[in-house]
């Protein structure tokens, strides 16, 4: 039900210090998000695609995920050509297609996929546990990191609980349809899930207290910035600068 398909691997990217990857991903993503020209966006798309290839993750899974995520973008491809004024127009039956709308939809698609591929390449290539420790080192508030860790720890457990509940309602002959009964049943499933989660939370908290929990998850991971990590950071910052420069000087 829930998995981290790209988290483990043994590529050049997987071995880079996670702190460097998080910083690189944040800086790069925001720089790309602020670009509007075709040249910088195509460059960013290429940079992200190459980074992704270097991770040696399953391309089939990547494409499947990206296809799902592009659903919302599809709406822009349908609506923008009809409503975004500018450029040449082409009559198509009762409506007109605006060239500027097509161009804008294409830019959105490039930008969106460039940012998401960077996310997969730089951050989805570490487990959430590693990400938590990394964020802790990067001075993200301790409580937030702890919340992330404990949510990650229990999301799989709760997913199992959910599957148990679903199995039991299926055994009793439940079939989802568009009826009030279906909604009521799902509401009770959610309610039951919350109750089990809450009871588990009490047990977990008591167990943590018994073990002398003082509000910190100690990280035993020793982050080491080797030469490779510095080279990675310089390359990503270089690419970011190039994209921004293209946006400023070659915008069209």
């Amino acid at each position, binding site marked *: 039900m*829930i998995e*981290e398909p790209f988290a483990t691997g043994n590529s050049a990217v997987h071995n880079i210090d996670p702190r460097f990857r998080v910083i690189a991903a*944040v800086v790069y*993503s*925001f720089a790309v*998000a602020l670009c509007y020209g075709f040249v910088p966006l195509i460059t960013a798309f290429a940079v992200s695609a190459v980074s992704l290839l270097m991770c040696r993750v399953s391309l089939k899974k990547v494409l499947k*995920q990206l296809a*799902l*995520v592009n659903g*919302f*973008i599809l709406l*822009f491809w349908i609506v*923008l050509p009809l409503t975004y004024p500018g450029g040449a127009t082409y009559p198509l039956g009762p409506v007109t297609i605006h060239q500027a709308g097509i161009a*804008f939809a294409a*830019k959105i698609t490039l*930008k*969106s996929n*460039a*940012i*998401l591929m960077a*996310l997969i390449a730089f951050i*989805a290539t570490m487990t*959430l546990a590693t990400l938590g420790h990394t964020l802790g080192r990067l001075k993200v*508030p301790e*409580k*937030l990191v*702890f*919340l*992330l*860790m*404990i*949510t*990650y720890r*229990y*999301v799989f457990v*709760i*997913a199992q609980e*959910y599957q148990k509940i679903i199995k039991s309602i299926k055994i009793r002959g439940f079939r*989802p*349809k*568009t009826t*009030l009964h*279906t*909604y*009521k049943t799902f*509401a*009770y499933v*959610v*309610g039951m*899930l*919350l109750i089990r*989660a*809450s009871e*588990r*939370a*009490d047990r*977990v*908290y008591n167990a*943590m207290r018994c073990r002398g929990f003082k*509000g910190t998850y100690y990280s035993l991971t020793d982050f080491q910035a080797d030469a490779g990590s510095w080279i990675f950071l310089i390359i990503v910052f270089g690419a970011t600068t190039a994209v921004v420069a293209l946006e400023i000087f070659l915008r069209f």
Partner: protein
Amino acid sequence: MHISEGILSGPVLLSGAALAAAGTAIGLKKLDYDRIARTGILSAAFFVASLIHVPVGPTSVHLILNGIVGILLGWCAFPAILIALLLQGLFFQFGGITTLGVNTLIMALPAVICYYLFAPFISGKKTVAVAAAFACGFLCVLFSALIMAAALIFSEENFLEISAIVIVSHLPIMMIEGVITAFCILFLKKVQPALLSQSGQYKNGY
């Protein structure tokens, strides 16, 4: 319920991130260490519940449940939803880094608003509680859709039609969320009322 990467403009992304950071800061301040384990595990439960697809005619929609998140967690909805979105981003690539702030705001701000509007009625009589819960689930999604539409329009004035589509397409989801929130709150009131009354303890500084 979130906006994809690459659509919003810089000022919208940054103001969304700033507001989400402010909300998260308030949430974290109210969240003392005794409650973190509970909030985290409930956040995990909401994450799993948001994977549930309910049928609507020939298609299906997934649950959002930010109304119930608001009622149960109050201001802590901000950090809880932020974490849930981060998990969604990493597990399914639904949204990346730059939209994290805006998307947190879209879901968490209505949750907090609905907490203040409806939480006092939830512990009341059954009929009042059901009506309040329905309104809570319904309005929470409506507010989310409105913030989403505003984010789109502030980014690009030509997104007017898309914003209209976003709001209209969420109308059936509002109904479903209202119904599910009402039944769910009723169920919790019957089976474990303590879960609901604990939200009141936030008000007393618990």
